[in-house]
């Protein structure tokens, strides 16, 4: 057995504030240097990298969108070939869904959730590091392939048989399928970390009814990921098996089925929309509370709405298949369930409006984005009700109407709140505020540019323009609207450009923020900006959902943890009663090796199935290195 831990001199209560900070930093810090940077497991450093990487992919995906708009600005344009266009729109969709939207929401949570629940690191921090490396590798594989004319050209949905062995020659579709594996492994890992962090590492006293709403949203999102993403893993693995070793999952001539793909894909694909949207719900709730200066109206209603959205999300997938000829009765059921999800969404909207109504709203940039969100998302919700109707959908399915609809929901519903969240939490992450003046321009340009770009697409769709066409004949007279859309897209792009510029500039030249520039009520604002490596010198204890508002003089904290090792508090699931002082793993380079070994195996397996056998040997080796005890104080029990 190891050293008895109960020696009084190593407990933090004996230390004054300065000495405690010094000792905690020695244990928790990430030293300077490349090696340490690669080995870090600090959720803040990884979260920052995650967020920055996701925004790089947003910018790249945006460039693809601009390229598409160039091609579509005029009828029968030849800015790029049909082949290139198909790669571009596939890349845009796959990149935005798998490399931007899901990761960026998880990235925000990786950074914020441990701070918001008042702990020192995320659960399974090494898994967290591994997940980031897998994510980066997946992005490199996809974009590397695209640069070498090997980008997938089968749509982000990769419907068989077009993506199958007979109609998708070469390795392009395999690249898509393996990119799925990379990003799903990383998303699933983060989901597991978040669930366990939220269940077991909350500050003492943070019972279920005191959890910040963003954290609730991330909890439900994580469960959605855990239950939905295996479906796409099953689907993409079946596809790659069909393509590489000749299985027949999707070959109707040998007992397979083409629609099986669509069922599996949308069983994942529809919850995916909520995986992106629910975190945004949490962000909006957070911003609404802080900037209307009052606790949220209908906390319980909001939580139940988020949970019921999560459950209903699994009952809707068939509404993506209304024109595939499934039995009409079944389709009517899915119309009902798709419509029903408007009810929890309505509850959320009404609760936010009630909060704003009875509060004292302060129109800082984050709240501007909330108003932009309300305007656009409610419209997206309305068109969502429209496409939920089977007969309505038969006219607009796979047209620009649907393109408009889901951009209203995903950009209006998720990206606007995300941008508001960036303005809101930027000072916490960097210690500096972004510019209020530039922010107003950003919000205005993005809001106006977005609506001018996407609203006319509703009309285009009704006027008969299908999606995923690389061009259209001049005689269809869609040209003028398309030109208008392309020009508006430039306004939208300029808004994003300004946003990136503001973020870069503010990193160095922003106004120093202080701990809590918005006088916000949740725990992440109880520590310095940016937070120290150990987040909190003494772990907070809470007695309300808005601790910083309800105890304005001093923060209640716990004492009695060891400062000589990485230690966090484990608390019970329902009422957050402290149960144990658990250690948290130290920095380690092994997650990186494991990610490299896994990446090699996954890419190699596109070329030969034996890669799965030989490639798993280095993975196993790396995993043993990862988990083998090193005899450090963290092993004490």
């Amino acid at each position, binding site marked *: 057995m190891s050293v008895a831990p109960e020696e009084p001199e190593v407990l933090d209560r004996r230390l004054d504030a300065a000495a405690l900070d010094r000792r905690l930093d020695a244990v928790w810090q990430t030293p300077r240097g490349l090696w340490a940077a690669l080995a870090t497991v600090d959720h803040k450093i990884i979260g920052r990298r995650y967020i920055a990487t996701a925004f790089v992919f947003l910018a790249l995906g945006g460039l693809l969108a601009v390229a598409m708009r160039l091609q579509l600005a005029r009828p029968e344009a030849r800015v790029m070939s049909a*082949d290139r266009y198909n790669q571009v729109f596939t890349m845009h969709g796959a990149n935005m869904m798998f490399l931007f939207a899901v990761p960026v929401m998880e990235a925000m949570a990786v950074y914020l959730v441990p701070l918001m629940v008042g702990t020192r690191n995320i659960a399974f921090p090494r898994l967290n590091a591994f997940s980031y490396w897998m994510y980066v590798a997946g992005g490199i594989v996809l974009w590397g392939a695209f640069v*070498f*004319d*090997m980008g997938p050209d089968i749509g982000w949905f990769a419907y068989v*048989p077009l993506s*199958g*062995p*007979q*109609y998708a*020659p*070469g*390795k*392009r579709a395999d690249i898509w399928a393996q990119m799925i594996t990379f990003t799903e492994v990383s998303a699933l890992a983060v989901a597991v970390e978040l669930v366990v962090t939220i269940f077991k590492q909350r500050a003492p006293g943070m019972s279920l009814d005191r959890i910040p709403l963003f954290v609730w949203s991330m909890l439900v999102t994580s469960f959605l990921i855990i239950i939905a993403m295996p479906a796409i893993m099953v689907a993409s693995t079946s596809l790659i098996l*069909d*393509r*590489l*070793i*000749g299985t*027949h999952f*999707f*070959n*109707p*001539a*040998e007992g397979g089925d083409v629609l099986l793909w669509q069922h599996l894909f949308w069983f994942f694909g529809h919850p995916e929309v909520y995986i992106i949207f629910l975190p945004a719900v949490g962000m909006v709730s957070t911003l609404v509370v802080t900037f209307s200066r009052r606790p949220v109206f209908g906390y319980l209603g909001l939580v139940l709405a988020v949970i019921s959205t999560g459950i209903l999300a699994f009952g809707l997938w068939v509404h993506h298949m209304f024109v595939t000829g499934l039995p009409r009765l079944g389709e009517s059921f899915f119309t009902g369930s798709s419509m029903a999800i408007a009810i929890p969404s309505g509850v959320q909207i009404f609760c936010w409006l009630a909060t704003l109504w009875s509060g004292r709203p302060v129109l800082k940039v984050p709240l501007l984005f909330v108003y932009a969100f309300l305007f656009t998302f409610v419209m997206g919700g309305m068109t969502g009700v429209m496409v939920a109707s089977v007969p309505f959908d038969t006219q607009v399915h796979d047209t620009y109407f649907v393109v408009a609809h889901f951009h209203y929901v995903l950009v209006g519903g998720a990206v606007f709140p995300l941008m508001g969240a960036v303005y809101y939490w930027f000072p916490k992450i960097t210690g500096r505020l972004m510019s209020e003046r530039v922010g107003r321009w950003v919000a205005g340009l993005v809001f106006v540019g977005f609506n001018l770009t996407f609203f006319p697409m509703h009309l285009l769709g009704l006027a008969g323009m299908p999606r995923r066409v690389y061009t259209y004949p001049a005689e269809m007279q869609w040209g003028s609207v398309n030109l208008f859309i392309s020009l508006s897209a430039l306004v939208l792009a300029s808004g994003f450009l300004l946003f990136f510029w503001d973020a870069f500039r503010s990193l160095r030249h922003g106004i120093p923020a202080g701990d809590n520039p918005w006088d916000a009520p949740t725990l992440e604002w109880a520590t310095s900006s940016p937070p120290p490596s150990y987040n909190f010198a003494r772990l907070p204890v809470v007695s309300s959902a808005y601790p910083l508002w309800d105890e304005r003089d001093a923060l209640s904290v716990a004492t009695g943890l060891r400062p000589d090792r990485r230690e966090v508090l484990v608390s019970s699931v329902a009422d957050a009663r402290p149960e144990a002082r658990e250690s948290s793993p130290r920095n380690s380079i092994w997650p990186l090796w494991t990610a490299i070994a896994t990446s090699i195996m996954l890419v190699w397996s596109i*070329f030969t199935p034996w890669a799965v056998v030989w490639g798993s040997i280095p993975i196993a080796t790396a995993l043993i290195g990862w988990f083998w005890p090193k005899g450090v104080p963290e092993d004490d029990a």
Partner: protein
Amino acid sequence: MTRRLLILAGLLALAACKREQREVRLDPPALDALDQVALMPNGIGGAPPDVLPALGRPYETNAYQLSQGKRLYGWFNCTGCHANGGGNVGPALMEGWWRYGPDVQSIFASIRDGRPHGMPAFKDKLTTEQIWQLAGYVQTIGTYAAKTAAPTRNDEMQSRPSESRGPAGADIAPPSR
């Protein structure tokens, strides 16, 4: 060392490019040149047209061209005599042993001009480029190591193992003839 690695990576990337390109249209002069096969007098072996290496031998190495060849194999009823490589009226192609040699120009000549004992000439049915596509594909049927660019199974009833499972010939016994 780093430089050598970079060069290697660059070459690999270029190879990948070539393998994945979708070249749907050749210029007419190149198309004409594709016909310039210098065969030996017995119609077996010889020199492929100069344009082929200049193009990077796309019909043997490019995934898109090979899959077009496979499409033609089904469309022009090659299966009628050769089945899916197992052979029937015509010889088996999967064994990897060919009466007129394994080089692609011989296969090209067999398809274009026909061969004795029943193999018809396809030069009036297929364009020269299509014959090259078909020849490239037919060559992959019989290879002992599957090419990474080779197509795999069809969305049809399976009468042979997937092309990616090379050497395919070893896996199924040739039909008794």
